[in-house]
């Protein structure tokens, strides 16, 4: 990799690492894992840098890769035996809002991703659909179900204007 390319890559790394790992953290609730996943996505960007650097938004590519890795990781964890999961408890009480973290953790992996992208990153539905490789109506369905499940778990209401 040439020096100019490396400088450019390093800049994208620094600019993307914080935001992407925070988003992933809201999904997986594990600081180390969130950083590992983001690092993996950024490493893949480095391997494909010649191609990715030509894209209009390289950081969007990294975000998509990181979220897909996170979803797969959550699906893998969900498939594990209960005993194995209990061996690695998540310290929700260390978070400023443990109730929201616990409630989000109750959602299915794709619902978690949709909720985090919609409510934290403020992404429009069509962009979420692109990131998750599903249709817009599927995203809306994920959000609808997640909202109602979260309302029950958090003891809150669902507002009328919510999509």
């Amino acid at each position, binding site marked *: *990799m040439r020096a100019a390319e490396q*400088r*450019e890559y390093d800049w994208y790394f620094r600019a993307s690492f914080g*935001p992407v790992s925070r988003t992933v953290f809201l999904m997986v609730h594990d600081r180390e894992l*969130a950083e590992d996943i983001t*690092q993996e996505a950024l*490493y893949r960007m480095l391997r494909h840098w010649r191609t990715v650097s030509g894209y209009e938004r390289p950081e969007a590519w990294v975000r998509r890769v990181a979220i897909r890795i996170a979803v797969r990781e959550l699906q893998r964890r969900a498939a594990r035996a209960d005993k194995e999961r209990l061996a690695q408890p998540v310290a929700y009480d260390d978070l400023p809002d443990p109730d929201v973290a616990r409630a989000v953790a109750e959602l299915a992996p794709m619902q978690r991703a949709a909720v985090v992208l919609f*409510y934290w990153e403020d992404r*429009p539905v069509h962009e979420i659909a692109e990131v998750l490789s599903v249709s817009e109506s599927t995203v809306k369905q994920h959000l609808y179900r997640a909202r109602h499940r*979260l309302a029950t778990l958090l003891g809150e209401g669902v507002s009328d204007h919510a999509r």
Partner: protein
Amino acid sequence: MPVEDRLRQGLEANATSFSPHGESRLAQVHHRRRRRTGAVTASLGVAAALLAAVVVQAVPGWSPRSTPPAAGDCSPVRGHTAPEEDSMDKRTIVAAATVAALASACDPAGGTSRNLTGDPEQGSSSTTVPTLPERGGWEREVTAKQGRELGVPARTVRRLAGDDGVLALGFKLQQGTFTIWTNDDAGRPTAWDYGGYTFERGHGLELTTVSDRCPSCTTTLTWHTIGGDVVFDSVHRTRYDALADWLWQGRWDYQAPS
């Protein structure tokens, strides 16, 4: 409280409690890349040696020394004659140039209190390109109604303009960087976006974001002045055009340095 608001507040609180260690991870990525490149090179070397051995074994009487390369057989390696930046578009060149100045200040953890430093000549190096001064700043207010009319998502308008429907904004150029800020709930100025800037011909101003808002996004504005005030006439951004229009487009009142 509606679950949507509860969720936004909770996610924001939890996300901001997490400070990632980006720099150490960057070093790890480069280390892994070097190891992989080294391993691939070594594998290719071994494969080439094995292949050469097989060829020597398979062709009796032939050895590498029996057919030395011709003296003039030194054709250039394809691709090495192209300039280094050929594959980069204008956006990435501007970003890379800005980044060189801002790299030390690009804190991946985000936040509003970083001390950006840059090349002080960056914004005012040419006498043929009109520029704005790096002294003082500009302020303005926009309303929620304007935002909605421009097509900014309703939830973004609500979040930014709050209950009173008015968003106070400030804008400043300093040492080759731009900052646009808003007031938080307690009325304290909070950086909304920041990064490098360059003035272009024809009263153009190109902003390259380095904040978490939209890393590497560029916003291109055309401007003119009325007295000390500046008016941004047209705004083009690589993302969130409507939001950029709402925040930037229109007249900004000059505020002399205090």
